[in-house]
């Protein structure tokens, strides 16, 4: 029996690596991959709690989270493609369309 605390610590570690990826990297696609990593860390904690609490709700939530992640990836990547066409770069510091 794997201790739930260890799974939760692994989940926290993966989430923190994802946060660091968003904060430190400047490539939009790498930032986007870090967001996927954070979603996976959350899924891991859902699985850990679902097993400990003898519940199926965590698994159902993961089902929906994965669908939302797929939709998010599709829309996000098309936005990145579109931005690349207009800016010719993937560096997030160059994307200041909303700054006015």
């Amino acid at each position: 029996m794997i201790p739930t605390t260890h799974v939760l610590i692994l989940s926290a570690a993966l989430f923190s690596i994802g946060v660091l990826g968003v904060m430190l990297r400047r490539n939009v696609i790498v930032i986007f991959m870090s967001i996927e990593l954070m979603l996976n860390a959350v899924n891991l904690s859902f699985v850990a709690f679902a097993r400990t609490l003898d519940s199926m709700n965590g698994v159902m939530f993961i089902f929906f989270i994965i669908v939302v992640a797929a939709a998010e990836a599709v829309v996000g990547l098309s936005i990145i493609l579109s931005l690349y066409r207009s800016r010719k770069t993937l560096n997030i510091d160059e994307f200041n369309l909303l700054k006015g």
Partner: protein
Amino acid sequence: MQVFFYIFALLSIVSAAGVLFLRNPIHSALSLVGTFFCLGAIYVMLNAEFVAVIQVLVYAGAIMVLFLFVLMLLSNEEGMQQHAIRWTPAKGVAAVATLVVFLQIVSSFLSPAMRLGEPGTYDAATVAETGSIAVIGRLLFTEYLLPFEVISILLLVAVIGAVVIAKRRFN
């Protein structure tokens, strides 16, 4: 069994760190695929076989292929190759803050104040008897019917949105 959990946990953290530190975005993406496979293996050990299967099929199979597809579409263009992390004072502060938050989360997991709620009715033996996919399917079409319908509309919106956004050229 428990040894394999720690092996896969270590592998998943190493390949997640690869996403953070590798210079080439394509290497980062492949490293992320490795993380997803390790997480899939951990899900199997945590009695979530269905999640493990969709993890490998949808995440490692579909979403990451989409990422690689976009990366390779843009990869021979100028400005694609990225440098390593350029450290500035602000980034140092951000990294330290993230580390502090991580330690805070871990200490809250380890503290005796953390209590779990009431256990549910789906323990491992019951689920194994019916089969986890049968249980999930039944829940999906009874208790979770409305979210299931809503999520189908979300997928439709995402598909149409992606086509519209990727087609238009805005100047």
